[in-house]
């Protein structure tokens, strides 16, 4: 059975699409090396449109109004530029209420496309542009650490990694957030207190990578001005024993925390990327793997949620779970003397 892979990789080739939210202009070329802060592409965000009723403004019929129109579609206007007129003894005119581009005109009305805020797409992490995506962005490649999570609050940022929890299993609380945490991507075990997230916002920090977060804090986490990534599960859930030491050993390095939502259809996962200064690239790892004996796996459901083990046996036929469900299952060794039978749909292959 082929399943998708979760990466906790100390060294791998990472290729990522970096895309604008809307069509725009790509500013880099294929083969170019970029730094994390370099702009790859830019676009205008969705513009607002304003309808200007110059017929009414001139006090004439829509048909007559068109005779007094002074602009054409495609023209760029500044605020207060003349749109139509003058008309009559009072020399009535209609001026543009905002700066923007004339989109459409006719029958006494004009549609003005307002100047939208522009959006600059930064590289996020240092690497090489290996492919351009017309009007949308580029594919970047780097080599380094890759840690993928299960939940993200939809934001992204770059910064240096700082270990904030006292201990891999100790809850991260607001008391751990001191000057060291400022402008850093913090590595913590888990958070169950709202005050922790709020103090992190005040400091401010660049981002937060956690093993777990209390489900009740999800709506709070979504409103925080910094990215939050959850690696293992919901609740008082310390980070797994592979991801935590891997990230902690890279303390001080520049990381890209992309806490995008997990979208299985589009293949996007929340993740941390830490580029490493290597000249030779290792072979890239696959995003899928055969579920087989010897594979390292993580269990995604309670009571073993987040636990990592190794498949010892893929059980033939179906297996009856203690709750009575009849499932395809595997025997997983969690520790030296701890085995568990898990439905195979509850297993994710871990590449580490």
């Amino acid at each position, binding site marked *: 059975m082929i399943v998708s892979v979760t990466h906790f990789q100390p060294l791998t080739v990472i290729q990522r699409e970096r895309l604008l939210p809307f069509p725009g202009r790509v500013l880099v070329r294929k083969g170019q090396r970029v730094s994390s802060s370099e702009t790859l592409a830019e676009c205008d965000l969705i513009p607002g449109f304003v309808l200007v009723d110059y017929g009414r403004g001139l006090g004439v019929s829509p048909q007559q109004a068109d005779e007094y129109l002074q602009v054409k579609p495609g023209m760029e206007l500044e605020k207060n530029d003349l749109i139509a007129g003058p008309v009559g003894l009072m020399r009535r005119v209609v001026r543009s209420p905002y700066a923007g581009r004339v989109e459409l005109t006719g029958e006494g009305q004009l549609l003005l496309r307002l100047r939208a805020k522009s959006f600059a797409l930064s590289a996020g992490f240092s690497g090489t542009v290996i492919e351009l995506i017309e009007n949308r962005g580029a594919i970047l490649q780097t080599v380094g650490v890759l840690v993928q999570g299960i939940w993200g609050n939809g934001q992204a940022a770059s910064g240096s990694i700082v270990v904030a929890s006292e201990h891999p299993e100790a809850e991260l609380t607001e008391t751990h957030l001191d000057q060291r945490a400022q402008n850093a991507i913090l590595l913590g075990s888990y958070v169950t207190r709202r005050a922790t997230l709020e103090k992190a916002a005040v400091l401010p920090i660049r981002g937060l990578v956690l093993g777990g977060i209390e489900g009740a804090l999800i709506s709070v986490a979504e409103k925080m001005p910094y990215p939050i990534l959850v690696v293992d599960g919901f609740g008082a859930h310390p980070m797994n024993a592979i991801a935590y030491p891997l990230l902690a050993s890279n303390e001080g390095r520049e990381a890209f925390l992309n806490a995008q939502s997990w979208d299985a259809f589009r293949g996007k996962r929340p993740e941390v990327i830490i580029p490493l200064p290597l000249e030779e690239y290792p072979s890239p790892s696959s995003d899928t793997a055969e579920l087989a004996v010897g594979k390292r796996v993580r269990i995604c459901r*309670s009571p073993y949620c987040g636990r990592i083990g190794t498949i010892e046996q893929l059980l033939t036929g179906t297996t009856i779970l203690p709750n009575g469900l009849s499932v395809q299952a595997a025997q997983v060794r969690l520790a030296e003397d701890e085995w568990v039978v898990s439905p195979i749909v509850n297993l994710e292959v871990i590449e580490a």
Partner: protein
Amino acid sequence: MPVSFVKADSLLALDIGNVTTRATLFDVVDGRYRLIGSGEASSTVNAPYHDLSEGVHRAVERLQQITGRTLLDEEAKLICPSRPDGSGVDLIATVISAGPPLKAVAVGLLAEVSLESAKSLLATTYAQVVEHLYLGDQRSLQDRLNLLLRAQPELIVVAGGTEGGAERAVLRMLEAVGLASLLSGAESRPYILYVGNSALRNQVESALGSLGTLTLSSNVRPTLEVEHLDSAKLDLMNVCRQIRSAKMPGFHEIDQLSSGGALPPSFGWERIVRMLSKAYDHRKGVMGVDIGASATTLVIGLEGKTTVGVFPQYGLANPYLRNLEQVSLKDLSYWLTFDVSPEALRNTLLTKQIYPASLPMSEEELEIELALARIMLQNSLRELRKRFRHFGIGEPPILPPIEPILVAGSVLTRIPRWSQAAMVLLDGLQPSYITTLVLDQHHILAGLGVAAAANPVLAVQAMDFGTLLNLASVIAPVGKARPGTVVLKAKLSYENGREEKLDFRYGALYRIPLSFGQTLQMHLQPLHGFDLGMGRAGIGGRVRLAGSALGILIDLRGRPLPLIREPKRRQEWISRNVAALEDHS
């Protein structure tokens, strides 16, 4: 010599979901259609594959191994039509529920009339209404335009204007739609389905036709009182196919191979329910229920007319809508027999949302999933009732007489004990009067519904031959009495001549075992004005009931079910109900 209606066409039914792709083969055996075998594989709609045909290929390969039939050619392509050497199939019917729901905007004139009809139309397919516009919403053209551009819908359904009714107002609403389409750019231009006043078709065509994404359909609201969705539903389905085809790799190939195209499961369900509603007792409706991770679908048919509701927001875990975050923890814990903190419950729901295909490993987590199924059924029924007022459920909400209730969804068909599935359906749907619960164990009904267009005999015969599981007959008279009062008397006459007289008391749930192959005649006499749906309240009569997995369930707990606020008493009540169904097992 008997005349055979069998055309001897074999059928490959494909069911492509977010998690699993199923391939099921039907063919003629001894002059009748039968299920030959079924193969499953993980779906490959999602990344990193991004091509649903790989999952189809694997499921069909598995089916080949199981049946020994050759269905794929040397280039691993499906063989259709069949070849003289017996390889391949004559017909392929495909239903697909994979991928995110379509993002749609509903546009109408009056909020309670045409806008509601546009929303009702969208509720017949796997779509999420992200915005709506109507004449009285106090928005200017500029506001409507900006709202449409921000919403970035894949589809805009425009209703409005009865036949011979409003024209200028409809054109005014179309102005914003047309401008938004024009300004969206070809890459993100939404499809437009016009289902308004047909007198405007030419004007709509000339205004929006050049954009290349317009479909004109019949008016869904020809008069203020009448809603007509049937013809527009077909056009909506075709628009959805176009959208999927453009965005889902592999869809186009499967769509081309499939008879009638690759269709949403709701389409197949609707056709099956319509067929059965013509065939069964005309005084009763037929209900189809499909409870899955992505959506809950309900279909009710009465004398050939159907009402469909597809509710992605009430799927058991739709990761695209994050629907479980909206589930009331209080409602959910109502159906649990153990105490659990709201925090633990929320964490369980969030995990399910992230891993929709995962399965509960403990008794408690299984109970949580079954409680969730009850809630999603209740919510879907409530929504169907709200949206389709002609549906015929009274106040308080009681299902009209229905026979049978057909049910699909792994949460119920792959459950450890049939009594658990029955409890979810009794609590979630609260069926009334006399009905039968039937499980679609092999997930074939939607596919058979699609195939029925080309071969209705196949669909009917395939359902007959052991492919469905009769779960239980349900007798649930409607009325009110003091708990413990005898409200139903029954005389049971078994095939072996044994007779038994039984009294049933209000407030309790009973089970009378009746195995497959057995039948039983029951003479039922409701007391205290209870209504069995036999003409009017208090009227009884004879019914002949066939054996099933659980036999006969007599549900006298009340309609609607009582609200028990005290947790311990409620947990005992739930445990007592479960025990009643498991007694004699």
